[in-house]
């Protein structure tokens, strides 16, 4: 039975991954990330992604607070936050987020505050979506590990 579960879990995981790739939410950089995971660092992907989430939330908060500020004018500062967000997002393979960041940056270059705001909202939305999906992915992986770890008592 557990064997079936393991298969099911693997199928779920593959389905989710192919969905994410197909939708352009993730790109091959994520594959690189997965390749970096090995015996010496078995949880590499989840570690990195968790760091990413943590940092991204900070950045998004900063961006929002900057833009919400009535006297907002420091596009430079926003650009720095944005640049970092874009860098980390592209490093983990979050393609859609990165594309939104590009649009965000374009608006910022033009000092288009309204454009920045709307871009920020899309960004937040995309980020939440990605976060959910990746959490789901990690959950499946965890279950797979558990399933693989179960041992049937040997009957002699």
């Amino acid at each position, binding site marked *: 039975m557990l064997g079936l579960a393991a298969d099911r879990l693997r199928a779920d995981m593959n389905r989710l991954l192919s969905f994410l790739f197909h939708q352009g939410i993730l790109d091959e*950089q994520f594959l*690189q*990330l997965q*390749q*970096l995971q090995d015996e010496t*660092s078995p949880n*590499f992907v989840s*570690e*990195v992604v968790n*760091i*990413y989430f943590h*940092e991204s939330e900070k950045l998004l908060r900063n961006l929002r607070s900057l833009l919400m500020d009535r006297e907002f004018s420091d596009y430079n500062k926003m650009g*720095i936050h944005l*640049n*970092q967000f*874009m*860098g*980390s997002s*592209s*490093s*983990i*393979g979050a393609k859609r987020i990165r594309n939104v960041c590009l649009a965000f940056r374009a608006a910022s270059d033009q000092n288009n505050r309204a454009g920045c705001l709307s871009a920020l909202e899309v960004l937040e939305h995309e980020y939440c979506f990605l976060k959910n999906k990746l959490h789901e992915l990690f959950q499946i992986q965890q279950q797979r590990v558990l399933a693989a770890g179960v041992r049937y008592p040997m009957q002699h």
Partner: protein
Amino acid sequence: MATMHRVVQSSVSTSDATTTSYGGLTSCKAADIVISDQFPAGLRVLVVDDDITCLKILEQMLHRCRYHVTTCPQAKVALNLLRERKGCFDVILSDVYMPDMDGYKLLEHVGLEMDLPVIMMSADGSTRAVMKGIRHGACDYLIKPIREEELKNIWQHVVRKKWNENKELEHSGSLDDTDQHKRGHDDAEYGSSANDATDTSLKPLKKRSNSKEGDNGEIDNDDPSTSKKPRVVWSVELHQQFVSAVNQLGIDKAVPKRILELMNVPGLTRENVASHLQKFRLYLKRISGVAQQGGIANPLCGPVEAKVKIGSLGSFNIQPLAASGQIPPQTLAALHAELLGRPAGNLVVAMDQSALLQATPHGPKCIQVDHGVAFIQDLVKSESSSSKHFSQSFAPVEDVASGFRSWPSNNIDTAGPSNSGGLSTQNGNMLIDLLQQQQQLQKPQQRSTVSELRRSINVQPSCHVVPSQSSASFQAGNSPVSVTQNGSYSRTAVIDYNFLSSQSNCPSLNIGQVSDVTLQTTGVLSGYIPLASVSPSVSSCSVNADNCASQQVQTSSITFKASRRLPGFVHSTSNIPDPYGSTKSGDLLNQEPFNNLGYINKGTCLPAKFAVDEFQSHLSSSSHGKVFCENIGTRVKQEPSMEFGDNAKVGIPMLQQFPPNDLMSVFTE
């Protein structure tokens, strides 16, 4: 560069790079570029990025490349780290936009203080940003997301930088720009990363134009934005002064101190003169052989009017030299062939081949003032050639000193004298280059060592060894086992040297610990030029050595000492199973050729003075040499143990000057 990765049939155990801890660096990274296909594993990388996500990813990727990684999220902390641990990093990866310090500022600081290659990274890949990076002197500019393949090649920047610095060091003001451009383009060939094309071609050119400040520069400063290391550029005028001083004193009595006094050039140190003198002597030996072939010199008759100007292969001044009609036709033809067909580095081969072919044991030693220019060019040639023929280090054992023309003929294997000679010279040149580059990287306090290194380098050990990998860079106070593997070439040899000389208490220097195997290896290499041999020996050690890092350290240290002392080893090493496949029988040491070598006459007084000044002070203990001696003696043929036990004076001078008589005496005893 596939050529850089030579597979060496040695049991090198490579350890994967680990993060952060230096002490834990292991092994045998020996991976010299040439020696083992482990290179560039162990390259010490410092990553600076405020983005933790990227930092973690890069760290993992660099681990995969088997580099030694240190991460730092803050630029200021990174800068302090660099300042504290100078010489502990080979390359820096830095983000552009950082909250506490601009990446460009960090780049400038690094360029000013440490002169390490810095690679910028950013999510911003606009041309404007990339251009800015280049202008600030970045070696490369990577755009995030960074792929592992891009990181795999970052070692090229380390290599290129070292070579460029070495070339600049030897670059005299008389060389024209075409030469520089050509070298710049050659360097560009090595670039493989996406953004390299602009970077590599621009950077070397920029560096060169900056270093070419004035012909009479005694101490030239590089472009401040990249480096502030003072260098002595032996311009034509300076060299003329030097040569006239030497002539005045007489080549036998030309001591660096007296030369310096005579030259009366402010800012010139005795070490500069000493190293230049060394090169000059070797140069004279070399050209005297060519001159003879051209029927110009009569070696047996004492001072000979050898007006042969061996065209500097490195530079492209063949025309005037050819026009002067003083280059032997074969040489000239070879030179032209090489010039047309291959990069400068190859010219050395041709050149040396013909020179070596024609070399006879009876080389006249004559100091000619008009050798000055050719000499400088020769230096340049050797520099450039060395940089080009990295991988060919194997024939070398025999080569040890290109100065020994006779050697190549003896040591050459069936391939024929010309081949070996050429190769060896190349290798030697490469080594010299590397070593000299290393010297440049060294701190000023190590100047004397550097100059010694330079001196010895000129001897042109044919050792392939590219200093970088093998020379476990020693860290002060580290345990013997902690051999830092670094991908940097230059550092290793120099560091070894300094380490040996300055840290006498270093347990790793205990020669006694060296195993036979390593000793053997050392012995093989010991014959190589003193300093230059450090790197080769180190690398060879790594090649043959076991996994034990300490062994390597010891080996290298031993080698280092040994190389200093036993010029004769070069030959004797032949019988040692040479990882590089060169098989020189013990009879390599052909004493006959040495009979007439050396304008140094009996070569006693001068070398002794020479040696005492330079080497004595740097040898941690004569006992080291002694111990080494004994060990080597058992391994290497024709290694009279007394050699080592003897005062370093004997050995050192011999190494440097290779006076034939001394060599003879070495073996007769």
